[in-house]
């Protein structure tokens, strides 16, 4: 009787140990050269864990959205590439995400972030190296735009919420929030109501 209990306990410990080993083997690290498939097959991750993976990436502007493989291979890209990949991966892992592009004052100055609705935070490629990788914000595009613009110490003119699919390779605009409009007129607020 005693022997049987001891065996069961040993086998349970073995299962737990193997599972932990398996998980640690699959968990990605910032130093890894991971691919899109690695990200897609990785165990569920929090926005913070996702952001940590990119802390050794570089900034490189490209006028078009890079294919995720290219972005991950060259470990360099811009805010669009990061935010779109973030929405793609975290969306697959069950998080509700929104892509918001904030147009700042000045020609050709814009910035895209990925907002995670269930955590009330957004991921910003500019914060990949900082300790504070996630920025808290209320869920309206206006609040996100105000927060993003403040990080640049600039004013903003419009915030565009969009979706992007790698298959279609096209940005689809959901709505545009204009800074001079009264907040009640914002499309995301009206749709939430």
């Amino acid at each position, binding site marked *: 009787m005693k022997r049987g209990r001891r065996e069961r306990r040993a086998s349970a410990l073995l299962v737990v140990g193997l599972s932990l080993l398996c998980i640690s083997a699959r968990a990605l690290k910032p130093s890894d050269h991971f691919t899109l498939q690695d990200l897609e097959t990785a165990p569920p991750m929090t926005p913070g864990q996702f952001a940590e993976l990119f802390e050794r990436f570089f900034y490189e502007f490209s006028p078009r959205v890079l294919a995720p493989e290219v972005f991950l291979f060259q470990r360099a890209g811009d805010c669009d590439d990061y935010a779109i990949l973030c929405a793609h991966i975290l969306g697959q892992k069950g998080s509700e995400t929104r892509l918001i592009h904030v147009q700042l004052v000045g020609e050709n100055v814009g910035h895209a972030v990925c907002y995670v609705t269930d955590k009330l935070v957004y991921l910003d490629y500019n914060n990949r190296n900082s300790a504070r990788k996630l920025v808290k914000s209320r869920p309206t595009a206006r609040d996100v735009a105000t927060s993003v613009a403040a990080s640049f110490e600039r*004013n903003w003119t419009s915030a*565009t919420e969009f979706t992007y699919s790698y298959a279609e390779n096209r940005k689809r605009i959901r709505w545009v929030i204009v*800074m*001079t409009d009264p907040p009640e007129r914002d499309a995301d607020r009206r749709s939430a109501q």
Partner: protein
Amino acid sequence: MKDKTLYAISLLFGLMGAIIVGVSIVAVRTIDRSETSSAWVNQTHATIYELDGMMSEFQAGEGMLRTFALTGEVRDFTECRSAYFEVLAHHAVAQSLTRDNPEIQSSLAQLEAAVQARVELADSLKKLHDAGRSEDVRSVLRRDAGTMALAGFQRLINPLRNRQFELLSDRDRDSFRQAQNTRFVILLGVATNLLLFGGATWLIRETLATRRQLTQTLQQANTVLEQKVQERTSELTVANQRLTRENRERKWTTLSQERQLRYNHAIVDTVSELVFVLSKARNVIRLNPVVAHATGFAEEEILGRPISQFIRLPAEETVAPAADRLLRAVAEGRELTSQEAELLARDGKSRPGIISVVPLRDDDQVVGAVVVLRLLAPL
């Protein structure tokens, strides 16, 4: 005077405070307006940026469309579509930025239709290419007035851009006027405040000078008063010393007089003859002890009674005329010397004697008389 000054100063400072508050409100409002104006300027610039973005992406799309027709590369087709989609993205933002302007919205709708047409054209070319009909691709492109599409797009974009620049000019003019107005209000407020401050300073200085003058006058008055008090005090001290001395002298005099009176009384009492002192009304007011002994009356019974009840002149027929003579002599202030008289005793007997009457004078006024009776027979 004091209350009025305080009231005036308070009023001036209150006015200054009100002006500062007013100017601050105007300044804050202007900053708010300026921010709003700046936001509108930024929005206008953003609209221009979006229009420019549309134009450049449209040009890129057109270029890539022709490149695709020449090379047949899928990557070129993808780039072409991406450029057109970017035009649509810019269009969506421009549409939102100008949603309150129907005229611009109408033009933007035309632009969107033009881009959609180009996307459809690109898709149709892709289909022809995929079907291996490369000649048809080039033929379609020849038929398509691409450059004309570009010019048409430019024709639609340009008025929109110009309109945005006009708006910028208008907003800049408003901003300039606001700045001018604010500058004027602030300068006016500062100038008024300086004037009021000057007025308050002048008022305070005047009040202080008046108060200083009043204090000096008060100090001078105090000094004069103190001098007078000192003078009066010294005068009073002297007077007091004099009075003390006089009192002391008077006391001595009184004591001396009392002593003298006692001596006089003692002298009169030691006289062996009968002495009567009469008042102006001829009543007995003083007598020596011999009188009581000789008459048998007590001293109290004699005092205050007429002298005629105790002395009679025997040479006359009646007592009354003799008494009248005595009394007349007293009244007229005449002396009577060595006149015969009789003393009337309690027991009704009379004793002969010699009488002398000497009037008493005070400042030539007869105030009484002294009657001395020497009995001829011893008691």
